[in-house]
């Protein structure tokens, strides 16, 4: 999952970026409203974290413009002015949730995970499809109740696929979202990781959780379990 952080305070932006990256997200960072809007519109983004008090262009305007351009990914606002008017303005402009400064990182992480999960259509933080269950808050994958050991990269791929279970996700999209910019982009690497994941989740090749659609991409094929 690739997150965009738009925050003008450098210390906060870098620290937030580092911690989110450690939690397994790909991160884009912007330091003012204009740059943020450009990233938000031009880069593959799964969720944006937007500070309301930005130079060049206010956070509210950025959110309005992003929504006007038809982007539907979740937006989390960071606000220092914790008057309800600002929260309501932000939510009406198109944001989905808010965190009031000074926040604890865990709070931001929890909101980000909840928003991503919701945008994928999941109601709970544990994504369950057939015998496969992915606990997004613990970053833990279980098949038939048995934990499966995954590397960070493998986890990010399965999380992305499962979040949007049923949708076809192209190789380019996976590469875009899973590599950080400084990695060399090579789509063959994705094929290798998909192969490893298949072996780990489905050693006897009976479940077939990840479908390959030739020329189009991959799809997490198991039906979601309806929890509610």
């Amino acid at each position, binding site marked *: 999952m690739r997150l965009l952080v738009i925050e003008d305070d450098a210390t906060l932006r870098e620290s937030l970026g580092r911690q989110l990256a450690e939690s397994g997200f790909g991160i884009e960072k912007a330091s003012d409203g204009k740059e943020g809007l450009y990233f938000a519109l031009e880069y593959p983004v799964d969720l944006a974290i937007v500070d309301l*008090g930005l130079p060049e262009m206010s956070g509210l305007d950025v959110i309005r413009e992003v929504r006007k351009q038809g982007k539907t990914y979740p937006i989390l606002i960071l606000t220092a002015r914790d008057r*309800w*008017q600002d929260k*309501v303005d932000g939510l009406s402009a198109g*944001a*989905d949730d808010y965190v009031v400064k000074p926040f604890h990182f865990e*709070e931001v992480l929890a909101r980000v995970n909840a928003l991503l999960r*919701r945008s994928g259509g999941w109601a709970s933080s544990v994504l369950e499809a057939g015998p496969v269950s992915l606990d997004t808050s613990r970053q833990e994958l279980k098949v038939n109740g048995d934990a499966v050991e995954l590397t960070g990269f493998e986890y990010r791929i399965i999380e992305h696929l499962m979040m949007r279970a049923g949708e076809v996700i192209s190789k380019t999209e996976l590469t875009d979202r899973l590599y950080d910019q400084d990695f060399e982009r090579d789509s063959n690497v994705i094929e290798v990781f998909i192969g490893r994941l298949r072996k780990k989740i489905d050693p006897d090749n009976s479940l077939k959780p990840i479908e390959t659609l030739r020329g189009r991409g991959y799809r997490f094929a198991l039906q979601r379990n309806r929890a509610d």
Partner: protein
Amino acid sequence: MSSLSARLLLSVSLLLLVFFGATIVVLDVAFREAGERSQEDILDGQLMALLAAAEPDDGGELVMPPDLPEPRLGTIGSGLYAELGAQGSAPVWRSRSSLGLHVPFPAAPQPGNHVFSRIQLADGTPLMALSLSVEWELPSGEFRPYTFNVAESLDSFNAQVAAFRRQLFGWFAAVALIMLLAISLVMRGLLRPLRQIEEEIGEIEEGRRQALSEGLPTELDSVARNMNLLISSERGRSDRYRTTLDNLAHSLKTPLAAIRAVLSEQPGNDVSRKIETQIERMNDIVRYQLRKPALLVSDSFGVTSVAIEEQLRRLVDGLSKVYKDKNPAIELDVDPRAEFRGDTGDFLELSGNLVDNACKWCRSRVLVAVTPLQGGGMCMTVGDDGPGIPEKAAELLLQRGMRLDESTPGHGIGLAVVKDIARSHGGDIQFGRSPLGGAEIRITIPGQFNK
């Protein structure tokens, strides 16, 4: 006396009273004097006629012929009386008209003098009398003193004067009335712009108008323009004040957030826990102190009427996103007659805290009702179907920073802020039980409130 037009009418009435009173007195005196002069002339004429008619008789005494040229002297009680008196004896002659009456003519004046005087008959009838003493040369060559007296009743003269006065009063009263009427009409016209300004200021105070309208008469136009300047600068001032507070909050909290973020990257130890406590303290101070109700920073000029339903709708839409997982059914019941005169930010602060709390605590339902208060204002109740608030805890909750359950996220300052805003608007906050089964918080804000 506070009304300009009443003041003007009163002073004009007083002036009219003085002027017309003086005029009436002068006219009355002049009329009366002219009347008396002509009365005296008439008496003088009568006396001359008597003098001319008197003839000495054979016995050398002066007598009056039986037929006098003035018929009124021959008519009993006609009001014109005459007498011819001789010195030292009873009158020589009395007119027929005075038959049966005693006309108290004054004592004879010095010979050659004629004297006017006022006398009265026994029944009180006022008379004007003229007496003339003469030395009459009798045929014998002897001079004898005689006194000619004529008197005429003043009844008809007084009646004339009274009629004149009545007319005078009548006309002046009519003129005064017409003048007062005309003046009050003119005043109405003149004062209409003032009344308009008064109404518009009322509307501004009630938040139904932003500024005084233009196109007033020249004298008032500059007043209105200055007033508008004052209003807008007042508004600007409170806006700037709030922006300053917001910016201050922003520039204090962002570093706090940065400190906290950096801190959370470090392995947890005693130092970071201590710093964390201090961050929390600073944050509480900033949050509470910089979120003053707008009423404290603006005055009645900045106040507008909040579109209650629209703002609540926005709030509920926003909170529905935030509580998407819980997905509570938030029901709105807003009476359009309810009014909140104040800052939209204050209204959202009140309702935001309450509805957010209700969403946090409810199981699945939240009810927000706004009803009008008698005499304007509003009563907002926010209830839920959660566990409710124990009675003892209610007062505690209103204290700054108190939070009943640390496990539910929230800063506990919310209700204290709600209380501050409600009180600063002259309102109050009460806890109760919602028909849904959980807690209900009721805020009453009166319509008219001056700091």
